[in-house]
């Protein structure tokens, strides 16, 4: 078996910190390497403990979770941050993604989904709920500015890659895309890898933006 995923839990509420730690330690492939009560503490523990994934609350004293995410992502590229918060406010989602977070989940997410979320993020995939992805697109629709230095065209993509990109833009994970297109997860992963390269995207959020800017998907207007 491969090495266990090392997790740091950062939350100012002791009750939640303990609960999430318990959850992490219950999974055989995960291990909690520490806890942090403030954003500053999270930065400090992350630097010393070098976790694979940080479960990061946003509203914390001393340093908020978004700032802490920015510092951690800048200091250690190997560490992924999964935001775990009570509210999915737009400013939280966009702020966290800009700061370099790999994913965003609500604290009342069913524990099974939370565990798979940690694994998804540790594997280097982004994680957003379809609702958040939708709002992300809507946000870009609002601030659409035709200044893209590199015009994003999908000319170089295969039909299959376009299909995968459409589903990524809808907020689906690799496993879900595999289910949808009747492909193996490994195949989906390689398609996503090609998309990253061809579209010069750093993460899934950027793939979503590319999908929107090229007109492959349209903003969901409710």
């Amino acid at each position, binding site marked *: 078996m491969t090495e266990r995923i090392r997790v740091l839990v950062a939350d*100012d*509420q002791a*009750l*939640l910190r303990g*609960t*999430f730690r*318990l*959850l992490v330690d*219950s999974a055989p492939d995960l291990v909690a390497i520490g806890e942090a009560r403030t954003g500053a503490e999270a930065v400090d523990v992350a630097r010393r403990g070098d976790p694979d994934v940080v479960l990061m609350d*946003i*509203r*914390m*004293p001393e340093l*908020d*979770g*978004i700032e802490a995410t920015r510092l951690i992502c800048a200091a250690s590229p190997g560490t992924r941050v999964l935001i775990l918060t*009570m*509210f*999915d*406010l737009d*400013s939280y989602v966009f702020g966290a993604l800009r700061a370099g977070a790999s994913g965003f989940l609500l*604290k*009342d997410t*069913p*524990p*099974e989904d939370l565990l798979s979320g940690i694994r998804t993020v540790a594997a280097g995939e982004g994680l957003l709920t379809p609702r958040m992805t939708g709002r992300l697109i809507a946000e870009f629709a609002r601030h659409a500015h035709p200044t893209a230095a590199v015009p994003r065209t999908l000319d170089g993509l295969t039909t299959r890659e376009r299909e995968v990109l459409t589903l990524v833009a809808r907020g689906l994970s690799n496993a879900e895309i595999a289910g949808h297109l009747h492909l193996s997860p490994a195949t989906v992963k390689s398609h996503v890898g090609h998309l990253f390269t061809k579209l010069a995207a750093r993460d899934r959020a950027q793939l979503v933006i590319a999908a929107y800017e090229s007109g492959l998907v349209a903003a969901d207007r409710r």
Partner: protein
Amino acid sequence: MVAADGVIACVYALVLPMMTRDGPTPGPALWWQGMVVAGIALPCAARRVWPVPVFWTVLAVTVFGWSTGHLREPFAAAAFALYPVALADAPRRGPSTRVIASVSLGLLAVGLVAGTPVAWQGDLVRLLPLGPVMPGASWAIGRALRDRRAAAARVTEELAGRAVAEERLRIARELHDSVAHSMGVVAAKAGVTRLLLPAGTDASVRAALHTIETTSREALTEMRRMLGVLRTEVGPDELAPAPGIAQLPELVRQAATVGVRAELDVRAAGDLPDTVQLTVYRIVQEALTNVVKHAGPTRCRVVVAATGQEVRIEVADDGETDLADPAAGAGGHGLVGMRERVAMYGGEFSAGRRDIRGFYVSASLPYRAGERR
């Protein structure tokens, strides 16, 4: 104000005979004249107390003085007495202020053309255009001021109403936020506990935890929706946790940087429920803000004392409060918020001047203790 009117009335009673005596005709009987002068000048002292009777008395005696030739008073006293009548006039009654002003100006113009106003004569032809000029001007000015005051009062009322509404919105937002957090803890705890149940656990336990988990998650979803309505904009403090007792020293430090040296005394308040802690924090925050704004550099004492059933908050300063009545004036905005918050808990609130100097805010909030952790 009434005392000033009294002084003016007496001075006028002394000046009036001089204006009368240097007339071209030999004066009438002195005692008669004295009576008329007193009848015109002295009621003016009470013009603010009984505006309408005073005005009619002064006007009647003035007209009598004129028509009998006892006096050539230029209706100054009548004008003086009419002013408070105009001020107290009910809105939208009688002629409009513009009409009064225009007619007065018109009469003045006619009077100027017809003859020199300085040569006051006893004839009624002169009196007709010029008599009402001064009272008319006074009436118009009084009415204009009344209209302006009424408008200012309306604006103040609207602002106060808006302040209350905004404050209630903020309180509702903070309360929902706090409850949502508690609900989130319930959902997370129930979910993780269910997942970690040992294999042989009774199915009913598992089902019960599942019910707690899903119900609290649904409630939380509703709370989020509610908060979406209440949240007008993302406030600057949304990235920090809701403040409580632990953040009080920070408030005191901030007050110190602007010259208010506050002494903080917290007794047994560490384990108050979150929402009560937040309320205590907000009240101390508003009270200290008021001290900073209205009392300037001073000393101030903050006491937060919990008994297990009730928490008392006292903020008292030694400063020279710069408002005539801080409870009603601009300083009232903060007080509105404090009052609203305390009312939400069914607590008691009072604020006002201290005996010697300074201002105090006192609040008590009942709560139920011992239910946390």
